[in-house]
Each structure stands twice: as C-alpha cells, then as structure tokens.
C-alpha cells in the first residue's frame, strides 16, 4: 500500500448518507423517510445544476451535489417553507442549494483527519473542472422520488 493511499480520507458512503439523512429529516422535510439510496441504473439529470464546497485539508476534498433545476427548486421551497409550485428566483435557489452543500461539506470536514478550511459554496450550470480529481464516493440518492447526485472527490 502506498503512502498516498494510507493518507487518503477513510470515508464511506454510509457516513455521507447519514449526514444527508440528518439534514433532510431535520431541515428540509421535518420528518424522516423521504431520502433513500437510488436503486437501479444511474438516472439522467434534466437541466442540471451543480453546487460544491471544497475542504482545503490534506488531501483537499470536494463535495459536489447535482440535481435537476426542478429538484433544486423543490428543495428551495422546502427549506424556505414556500407553497408548492411557487416561483423560485435564482438568488433563493443558489442560496438554498449552496447551503445544502455547505452543511454536507462542513459535516464531512469534521470527519476527515485534517479538515482544514471550508470554502464558501459555489452554484453553477456545470460541474467545476477538476483535472486529476479522484472520486471517493459517487452515488445517487432519491429525494421524494427525484434523483440527487452526490459525489466526494480527492483533489490533486
């Protein structure tokens, strides 16, 4: 086993699922049962949006979430307690999904050996360029039947 492998964060999908479950139960849904693992083929995300935070530790790690704009809007409505179907502006959208990335990232940071600083969340129409990044976790969750792509990357 190489030194690089030994110093890599020991982080498993279950821990990530635990963080996401806590977040959705307490702050998004207010009740358990709406977030599960995605079973079956990886789904296509329509009109996708991306949000991420970096944990600038050793090694640097990125938490990247992706969902359709529609799912992101649902998430924003849930967090802001807005009525079903109400319009969601870009500012509220970026604020809400960015904060989801911030909460997941912050909780992951507290689990990795050398956490370092957490960046402010970014929100974009495309995933950030990350040449040489290695996927540690790459999974889909289902929130109220809609896919959420959750990935954790070791940055070079």
């Amino acid at each position, binding site marked *: 086993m190489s030194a690089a492998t030994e110093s890599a964060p020991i982080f498993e999908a279950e821990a990530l699922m635990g963080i996401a479950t*806590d*977040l959705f*139960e*307490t*702050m998004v849904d207010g009740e358990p049962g709406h977030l599960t693992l995605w079973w079956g083929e990886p789904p296509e995300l329509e009109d996708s949006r991306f949000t991420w935070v970096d944990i600038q530790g050793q090694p640097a790690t990125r938490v990247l979430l992706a969902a359709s704009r529609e799912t992101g809007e649902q998430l*924003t409505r849930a*967090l*802001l*307690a807005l009525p079903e179907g109400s319009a969601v502006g870009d*500012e*509220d959208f970026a*604020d*809400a999904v*960015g*904060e989801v990335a*911030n*909460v997941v*990232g*912050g*909780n992951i*940071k*507290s689990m990795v050996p050398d*956490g370092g600083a*957490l960046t*402010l969340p970014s929100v974009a129409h495309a995933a950030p360029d990350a040449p040489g990044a290695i996927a540690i976790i790459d999974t889909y969750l289902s929130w109220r039947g809609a896919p959420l792509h959750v990935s954790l990357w070791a940055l070079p």
Partner: protein
Amino acid sequence: MKALVIDDSRVMRRIVTGILRGVGFDTVEAGDGKEALERLTEHPDVALCCIDWNMPVMTGFEFVVEARKRQEWRDITLMMVTTEGEQGQIVRALAAGAHEYVIKPFTPEIIVDKLELLGLVGARA
C-alpha cells in the same frame, strides 16, 4: 428580547429567525461578521447572537473575537450555529468567548433547548 441572526445564507437566517420569533424574540439579521458588528452598534439592546462560522468578509469566529473586545457588549450571549463540528473548532470558539455551540443540521428543539440552558427562554413544561 432581541436577537441578531448572523449567517451568509438567507435561507438559514430565515430558519433561525423563525425559531427565535416562535419563542418570543425580536430579530435583526446580518450576512457576515462585519455587518453584524454594525447591527450591534445600531441595536444596543441585542441580548443574543446566533453566529454562522463560514461567511465572506468576516467569519463568525472573527466576529466573536471582535465582539468580545467591546466592554459594552459583554452581556450579550454568543451562540455559534454552524457546520464546523470538529472538537478543535468548538474549543476555539468557546475559548474566544462563545457560550454555546449548535451544529447544522439542527431541529427547532435543539435551538430552543440551548436557549433554555442559557436562561434566555423559560423551560417548557
């Protein structure tokens, strides 16, 4: 009683504000630590600050350090409400003068329990 809710996320400010209003607080808001220092100057009757850590311009930690330098603010209760959950970060914030620490995500009950502990709201039956 008046509370200052400090978080760069408006979503998070609305959530915390809603909980505090539910137990009788008046609230004012700030989007970063620097803005929070300005709000405190404008609102000398603030009794509680709920403080996010990770914010642009001035972090919640820097805000705590600055606020603690001011004699006139020494009676204000400072409660961190943040994703920064490592033991080291908690110890740092408490050493700098924060009184309580809540890690996101949280339920309204967690916040209200902390406020009871701090003697800022009456204990529920």
